């Protein structure tokens, strides 16, 4: 098998598992779980097989020479099944496979018992896995787009999975549509790029970029593709869907809305980072990243829902990746992607365990859970520490590298400052969440903390390990690229310490109360994400719906009205004409003679002047 085939096998295996999963009867939940798990496991096997093939060197994001067969041809442009893995992208695939596998296992414990529709659920996870892997391995942008959109569809399906939550279907639709807005740009960007480059492969595009000087094309396509990435990665201003998406089952949040899909935007920008340079739009990305990271960190600070805290934190952390991309530190971005994938998946699965025992997402109803659930507590603690960026955890290394890269970048001053503020805020909200969940007294009567069942427990442990160790061993991977800057590191650690200190200090004052209370009236503003949902509603959703109603009415009354009116009009004229013919012979005679007279006169007139 060629390398293309081996690379494509990576998405194909979970895809087959998904197809099989969809055909499994609803009652055979265990079989479905087994199929889903097997799909992810199979992908893991293939992943290592790919490693055995030898991957292209680092750190360049390879302009792939791995051309696959033609999938379809439109005129002189073709879509090819081109795929391959480089050393860098392998790690992205690895985190996808790992989290997917663990989520499949975790879900058995989390959902299987009392969810009638577990079978499609598992299959959808498999399908998602396949799609994400396709995004990772694809060397053809159209192929990537397939994965990209299928991910979105799976996200939609899985967010809407929980029938008990009335808001879930709406959240699912919102998630899909907001990302779809970005995808309009993404599609157009790809099409324009593909048209100009004469193909959709990274190789074609690289060649085009070296040959051509069409700066406008670069700028336009870069912006369009960035729009897609922003939508998928829930960056400002298309981030509004992500907090709502937490209506999905928690394992799904871990997989899709934290570890993988949301990071896909950053991944794609990494793969097309040359385009950003050529198009000279990195400043735009930097601005987006700055706004996103602070805005969402503030929102995380004020949220009471543990999953929303994590969701906002995801926006913020992905913004770090974007920041890295915007300064050209692509490998570092991927490094942060991988590390974030690890600790955020850990945090979400841990949150799942917490929610499972607490029966609610609200941190106000938690507290003191440390006692009866040591494994959950410790693994979550590791996760929070990594999120904060405490050494020597994975998050520490990746965040330091990002900030150092920004610091080193000539235009990175503003970005660096914002990054520091965000680090501070991150430390603060993570500490707050940690304290509110596990410390103090239980705020719900009769809530007895306990560790979850082994299906859920072991994935936590398995994720905790690399979260601790990956940073230390990262030097062995090509991901640890570049140096940490001592000044940057110092400033960062200071910010982190301040953040932790603030949170802890306030909490100490009243252990039962929420440290966020000190935000005062700003708290609701932050918690609502600066009311951007409402803004979006007013500016986009409502006008479109009004327009839709107008369009429908216009179609009925004007377009169809014209047709129906013509029909009625003709009928009416027909009635008149028929009425005119009910008269008797005298009028017939008049009609004959007058007709002859008029026609003859007309003939004379036409003969004279015609």
């Amino acid at each position, binding site marked *: 098998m060629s390398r293309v085939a081996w690379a494509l096998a990576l998405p194909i295996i979970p895809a087959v598992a998904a197809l099989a999963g969809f055909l499994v009867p609803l009652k055979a939940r265990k079989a479905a779980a087994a199929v889903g798990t097997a799909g992810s496991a199979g992908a893991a096997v293939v992943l290592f097989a790919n490693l055995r093939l030898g991957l292209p060197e680092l750190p360049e994001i390879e302009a792939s020479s791995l051309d696959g067969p033609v999938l379809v041809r439109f005129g002189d442009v073709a879509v090819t099944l081109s795929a391959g893995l480089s050393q860098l992208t392998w790690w992205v695939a690895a985190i996808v496979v790992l989290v997917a596998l663990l989520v499949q296992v975790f879900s058995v414990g989390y959902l299987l018992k009392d969810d009638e529709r577990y079978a499609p659920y598992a299959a959808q996870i498999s399908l998602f896995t396949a799609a994400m892997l396709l995004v990772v391995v694809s060397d053809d942008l159209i192929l990537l787009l397939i994965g990209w959109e299928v991910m979105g569809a799976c996200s939609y399906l899985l967010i809407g999975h929980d029938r008990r939550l009335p808001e879930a279907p709406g959240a699912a639709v919102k998630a899909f549509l907001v990302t779809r807005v970005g995808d309009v740009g993404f599609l157009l960007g790809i099409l324009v790029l593909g048209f100009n480059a004469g193909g959709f492969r990274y190789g074609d595009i690289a060649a085009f970029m070296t040959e051509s000087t069409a700066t406008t094309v670069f700028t336009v396509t870069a912006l369009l593709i960035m729009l897609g990435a922003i939508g998928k990665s829930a960056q400002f201003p298309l981030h509004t869907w992500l907090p709502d998406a937490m209506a999905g089952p928690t394992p799904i949040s871990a997989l899709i809305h934290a570890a993988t899909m949301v990071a896909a935007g950053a991944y794609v920008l990494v793969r097309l980072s040359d385009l950003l340079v050529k198009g000279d739009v990195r400043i735009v990305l930097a601005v987006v990243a700055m706004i996103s990271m602070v805005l969402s960190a503030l929102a995380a600070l004020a949220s009471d829902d543990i999953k929303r805290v994590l969701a906002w934190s995801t926006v913020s952390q992905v913004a770090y990746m974007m920041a890295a991309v915007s300064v050209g530190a692509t490998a570092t971005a991927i490094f942060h992607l991988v590390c974030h994938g690890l600790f955020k998946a850990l945090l979400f699965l841990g949150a799942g365990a917490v929610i499972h025992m607490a029966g609610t997402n609200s941190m106000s109803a938690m507290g003191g859970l440390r006692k009866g659930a040591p494994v959950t507590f410790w693994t979550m603690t590791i996760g929070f520490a990594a999120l904060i960026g405490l050494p020597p955890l994975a998050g520490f290394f990746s965040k330091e590298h990002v900030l150092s890269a920004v610091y080193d970048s000539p235009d990175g001053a503003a970005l660096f400052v914002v990054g520091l503020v965000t680090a501070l805020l991150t430390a603060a909200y993570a500490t707050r969440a940690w304290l509110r969940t596990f410390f103090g007294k239980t705020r719900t009567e009769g809530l007895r903390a306990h560790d979850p069942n082994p299906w859920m427990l072991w994935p936590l442990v398995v994720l905790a390990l690399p979260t601790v160790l990956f940073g230390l061993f990262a030097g062995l991977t090509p991901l640890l690229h570049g140096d940490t800057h001592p000044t940057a590191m110092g400033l960062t650690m200071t910010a982190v310490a301040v953040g932790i200190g603030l949170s802890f200090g306030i909490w100490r004052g009243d252990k039962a109360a929420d440290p966020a209370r000190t935000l005062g009236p700003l708290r609701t503003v932050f918690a609502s994400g600066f009311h951007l949902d409402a803004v979006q509603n007013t500016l986009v959703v409502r006008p479109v719906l009004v327009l839709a109603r107008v369009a429908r009415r216009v179609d009925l009354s004007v377009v169809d009205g014209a047709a129906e009116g013509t029909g009625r009009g003709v*009928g009416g004229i027909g009635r008149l004409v028929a009425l005119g013919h009910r008269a008797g012979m005298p009028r017939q005679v008049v009609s004959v003679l007058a*007709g002859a007279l008029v026609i003859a006169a007309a*003939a004379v007139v036409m003969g004279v002047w015609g």
Partner: protein
Amino acid sequence: MVQSIDHVALLPAYLAAGTAVLVLLADLLLARRAVTFAVAAIGAAATGAAAAWVASLGERETFCLPGGCSFVADGTGAVVAVVFSVLTLGVIGLSWPALRGDAEDPGAAPPTGEYLFLLACSLTGGVVLAYARDLITIIVALETLTLPLYALVGLRRKSVASAESAVNFLVVSVISSAVTLMGAALLYAVTGAVHLDQLRHNLGGPVTDVVPDYDPGAVDLPLTSVAVILVLVGIAFKIAAVPFHAWAPATYDGAPLPVAAYLSTASKLGGVFALLLIAVGGLRPALDRSGFLLAAVAVATMTVGNLAALRQTRMVRLLAFSSIAQAGYILAPLGVFAAAAGREQDVVDAAVTATLAYTVFYVVLELAAFAVVIAVRGSRQGGLIADYAGLARRSPVLAGAFVLALVGLAGLPPGMAGLFAKVTVVDALLEGEAVWLAVVVAVNAVIGLVYYVRVAGVLVRAPEGAVAAPGPRVPWPVALTLGAATVAGVVLGFAPQLVLTVTGG
């Protein structure tokens, strides 16, 4: 200057006239309805056969004067004569229930012998018309074709409606023919010619030598334009073109059904052919000038016919208005005279072929439609459209034939004959580059579909409250005619080239 008369060429005319006489004799001597009926049918068939046989002998001319021949047995004439005979044969078949009469009131039925005699006289006129090539013969033939119909329309002798229809038809017809005669007289005054060929020639030249100091050329004379229009009025009356059409619904509705069928098929064919003869054969130079009016009349005819048909409640009136609309399509190709200045011969040929072909397609379908109506209603009148509700259940075969005929008149498959008829017309219109006229035809065909479909819909609808009665018993002559017309419609649908070949001759 003694004419040598070619009696072979005249054979169809002799047979038609002979049929009339024989029918009268048979009725007088034998007084058996079946025999009289058979004589008439055989006579009509023989006339058609003779016309076909004469045509196979090649073109023959007789009654020739220096200006041209009055009687030319050419291919086109033969087609018209044959179709005319066949239509008359069909109408004879359809007349059976009317002649047998209503069991309750036998006295109301038309007398068989006289009825068939008048029909045969009309046939004689039609056959002569097919071969006539001068104005005098054409006019006399048209009169012979029409005059017996005055009586025929009034032959439901106890019916006020029938008598009123007869008076109506008579008066309007007489007035129209007076107008036509005035036109013919003026035409003769201008050109000094009555033979079509000579007429065409003289019209193309200067006014006859009587007006030496004022010599604008015959076609430029306003008098010529008036004369041409007046001549065409009477013919437009025969084919029920707007505004000379209003007699048709009233007359069809009161006349015995088979006579209505004859009026809307054979009589109309006669009118169309007379129009072709005079307009294209005789008056072509003049029509270059005022041909647009013909197009306008065509447009008015199809539009008014279709619009009025939308709101009819009586079956025969609906068919009448539909046949008016059809007349519009028939006239449309002649409208291409107005299309462009440089009318070439092939454009004219296409128009003539299309007109004639459309008429043939149309009469076949129309006869089939009337055959169904007669099969359903027997000796009664056409009745309301609503009376046909549920026919599809009572008699699927009749309903099927009716739908086939109506859909054909609408110009849609499976009525392929009608489809090709429309195609032929559009082809001819565009041959003359009259796109606007083609579009008008298209729009009208759409309006037409409304009422054809409405009738078809009534057929399948269950009658209100009534239990499905058994289908009507169809007398065999009617069944035979209906079957033949339907088969002809189907065959022509798949082999329209048969018609197009002969009419293109």
